[in-house]
């Protein structure tokens, strides 16, 4: 018996050394340690705001946490469960903002990328015809009208009407501002897109837009599992930018930024992708933008997930042991350099940021969950004593604004571009 046992020897694969990606391996190796549910313990600053996973806080059952989704994924991969075994399967997989909080926590402890498992599983669900009914009209509209907002393609350029900006569908230009679906069709937020363009122009940037011919970036479709749609729109954008001789793409939506920065290169894109906060931070440092007006305001800053920790979660970008990097400092540099503005940080910031609730299709499919998540963030923001929550993503702004409205609160939700405009 003992001799038999001694025959076992390690390593039997590279489990103990170099990282490699394998969907089943990650699901199987989930330790159920629950690190994915909470902010790093040494960073828990308040009992009320200690969780990192909105889904596990809202739905309570462990099935609605990253750990539960690893169990579900493994069961489906190993055929312990089939799609027909439980009508809850789709909900369990899709009631997730794909904010990557779990992923950032798990990486630091277990060298694993669980969000990638979830995104791959979503894609497999779609491939297998397991479609979430709430997504269907949105994807249908995307296919017909090239946007995720259930709007007409013909109206896409309206946000820029009267704006003196180069049209890159007819001219060439090195810098394109990609407004994204939310800013193009959410009339209440048009001023953010217009403000961004104006700031760039004021700093002497030769910026152009695609106007009504701009199309969806495909990021949200990717999060929902619709890889075909993502690829189609990514390729379309890449082609359009190449035709216009674009070198730099500027975006003010974090979803779009993530997709262009992390996913487009897989499809051959070779542009410099810059978020508006990075660009403005750069312009301020170069002295091309100066904040001259006092803005007496106590604000807090909300880190959008896709501008933050998600940047370390993409095929080929994860290196175990490396920091969960994101665009954390540029927005803070900008806010701190505006005269009169006082930055009061929330408990959960940077890689520990609490999601706004919009991601992963949740804003469309599960409005109650979306609202809960955003409301939690507003409550946390209010704890700082700030009068405004500043963000750098149009989806976050919409989600947080709606939460404030539903709470009957008066907290201002503003894009960083709006704050900058007040200072210039």
């Amino acid at each position, binding site marked *: 018996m003992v001799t038999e*046992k001694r025959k*076992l020897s390690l390593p039997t694969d590279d489990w103990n050394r170099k*990282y490699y990606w394998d969907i089943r391996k990650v699901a199987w190796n989930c*330790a159920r340690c629950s690190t994915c549910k909470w*902010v790093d*313990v040494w960073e828990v600053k308040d009992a009320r705001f*200690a969780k990192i996973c909105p889904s596990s806080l809202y739905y309570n059952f462990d099935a609605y946490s990253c750990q539960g989704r690893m169990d579900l994924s493994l069961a489906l991969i190993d055929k312990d469960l089939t799609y027909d075994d439980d009508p809850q399967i789709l909900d369990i997989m899709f009631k997730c903002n794909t904010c990557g909080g779990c992923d950032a926590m798990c990486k630091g402890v277990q060298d694993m990328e669980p969000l990638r498992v979830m995104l791959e599983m979503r894609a497999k669900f779609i491939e297998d015809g397991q479609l979430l009914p709430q997504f269907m009209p949105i994807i249908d509209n995307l296919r017909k009208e090239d946007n995720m907002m259930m709007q007409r393609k013909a109206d896409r350029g309206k946000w820029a009407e009267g704006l003196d900006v180069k049209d890159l569908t007819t001219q060439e230009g090195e810098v394109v501002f990609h407004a994204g679906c939310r800013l193009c069709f959410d009339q209440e937020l048009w001023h953010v897109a217009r403000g961004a363009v104006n700031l760039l122009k004021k700093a002497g940037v030769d910026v152009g837009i695609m106007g009504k011919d701009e199309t969806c970036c495909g990021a949200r479709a990717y999060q929902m599992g619709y890889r075909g749609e993502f690829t189609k729109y990514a390729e379309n954008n890449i082609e359009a930018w190449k035709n216009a001789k674009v070198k730099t793409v500027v975006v003010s939506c974090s979803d779009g930024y993530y997709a262009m920065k992390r996913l487009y290169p897989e499809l051959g894109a070779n542009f410099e992708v810059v978020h508006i906060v990075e660009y403005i931070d750069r312009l301020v440092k170069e002295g091309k933008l100066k904040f001259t007006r006092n803005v007496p305001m106590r604000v807090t800053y909300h880190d959008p997930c896709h501008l933050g920790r998600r940047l370390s979660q993409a095929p080929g970008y994860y290196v175990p042991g490396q920091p969960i*990097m994101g665009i*954390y400092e540029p927005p803070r540099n900008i806010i701190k350099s505006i005269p009169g503005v006082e930055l009061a940080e929330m408990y959960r910031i940077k890689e520990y940021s609490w999601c706004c609730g919009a991601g992963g299709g949740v804003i469309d499919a599960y409005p109650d969950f979306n609202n809960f998540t955003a409301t939690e963030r507003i409550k946390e923001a209010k704890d700082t004593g700030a009068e405004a929550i500043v963000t750098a993503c149009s989806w976050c702004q919409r989600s947080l604004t709606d939460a404030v409205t539903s709470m009957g609160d008066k907290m201002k939700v503003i894009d960083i571009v709006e704050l900058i405009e007040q200072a210039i």
Partner: protein
Amino acid sequence: MPLGDEKHRLIYSELVSMLGESNVADGPATLKAYSRDMFAVSVLRRKRGPEFIVLPGSTEDVQRIIQLANRYKFPFSVISGGWMFPLMGAARPYWCIIDFKRMTGLEIDEKNMYAIIQPNVTHAQVQAEAMKIGLYNGIPLVGAHMSALANHAWHGWHGTAYRTGFSTRNILGMEWILPTGELLSTGSLAAPGAGHFWGEGPGPDLRNLRKGVVGDNGSLGIITRMAIKLHRWPGPRFLPTEGVRPQKKCELPADRFKWYFINYPTEKKLIDAMYEIGKAEIGGNMERYDSQRLAFEYAKSRDEYWGLLEQGYWQKFPNTIALCLWGFTSEKQLQYEEKVLNQIIDETGGELWPKEAYEKFVPYVANTKIRAIWGPRWCRNGGSMQTGWLVMDTLDEILSYTPTVWEHLRKYTPPYLEGHGDSAWVLPFDFCHFGGGDNAPPFEKKEDIVKAVLAEAMEQMALDTKNGKTTFELATAPINVTGPSFANFHVPMAKIKKAFDPNNVSNPTRFIDMDAMERAEKEAAKPS
């Protein structure tokens, strides 16, 4: 998988009428999330799951669930963080897991220095609120993201237990739902209006009935509220960290905290020094590191861990005492303790780590450990599966277990660990009056390996038990198996279990398996 029979449907509908549909689940996709954890037992038995998950919101909800369990004779167990799940896992039909996610009450009595907690409050949450007012609740080995209540009731090995005492000593008044559904208040809570401030009584101290070394796994009912002692925290409101994970740096106030890393030529000398430090009653937390543990706590990835061992850097310090002096009352206390410690180091032949090693380890590892020993990271090296041989004994005795344990472990660990990893981590409790030890090497999480390791663990444990050693492997045998080697202590415990839980519904297979015991008794009574 749910049986879906009439009894199942009946229980389900009763639970739903009691708690509401959104707080009861019996769907297979939800149940899958309650089928396993990292330990060997559940890796091998992950296909066995519960039939119901329920989310009570109050003590009264828990009482009603338990009363229902007694009426319909279905087993139940509890879960909070889920770390020790095999001890609570479903083993029989109609098994119901009570998940405490909705029970998150936390109150702090600043003046009397205790916190009153419900089961789903983590150590980190208690710490966060306590630290704001200069109080503190210890460094849990398991990770501070686990239930503080469950941790006190079960394992409760704290880095600070050296000074603040083993977790049993930190339990005050408890609200305990017996396996029959009755509410029992313990300690001062039993006296109307007295509050939670005292732990003992009425009558015999019931804390140790629940707690012992590693608790009763919920087989004597459920604690729905517990008061735990808080201790003085001389540090800042928030732990001062900088950087982005996993490359976090933390500097503690130098006038109140000072780490010492002292290496000894032999384990014997190390333990002797620990005793001297304990006798002097200095320091806030202390542990013994071996080189393997230094490497994996320092490493930020699995690859870095093996690389470090290959480089041999941490092997220069195979017998290290890590001691943090805390100036609880003042800077002067810290200065005094430093003088005492330096004298002990001289007398015991210890050698301080070189500055380079100290500066590598303290700001990046040791200081953040002030809030958690961070158990989950131990899973990383073995592909997430870890099993350990735990020992609780005097400090000298802990090390006497090490050679035999490693004889078994070596077969499953990569060869380059040999010669410099064969030792134990030691955590002293109560100023070194006793302590805990652990050997936690990495294993690959593959079924054949897990099976073999578990079999070896059982073999080892049986041997230890026979030799009267108090070793235990996490999540293994109930006491009807181990009791015969320890003066048949399972016999009185069985009587207690029967008195408390006449229907044997409260986690019936763990702590003590009454059915197996009765079968054995019947077997023994048969004429030969």
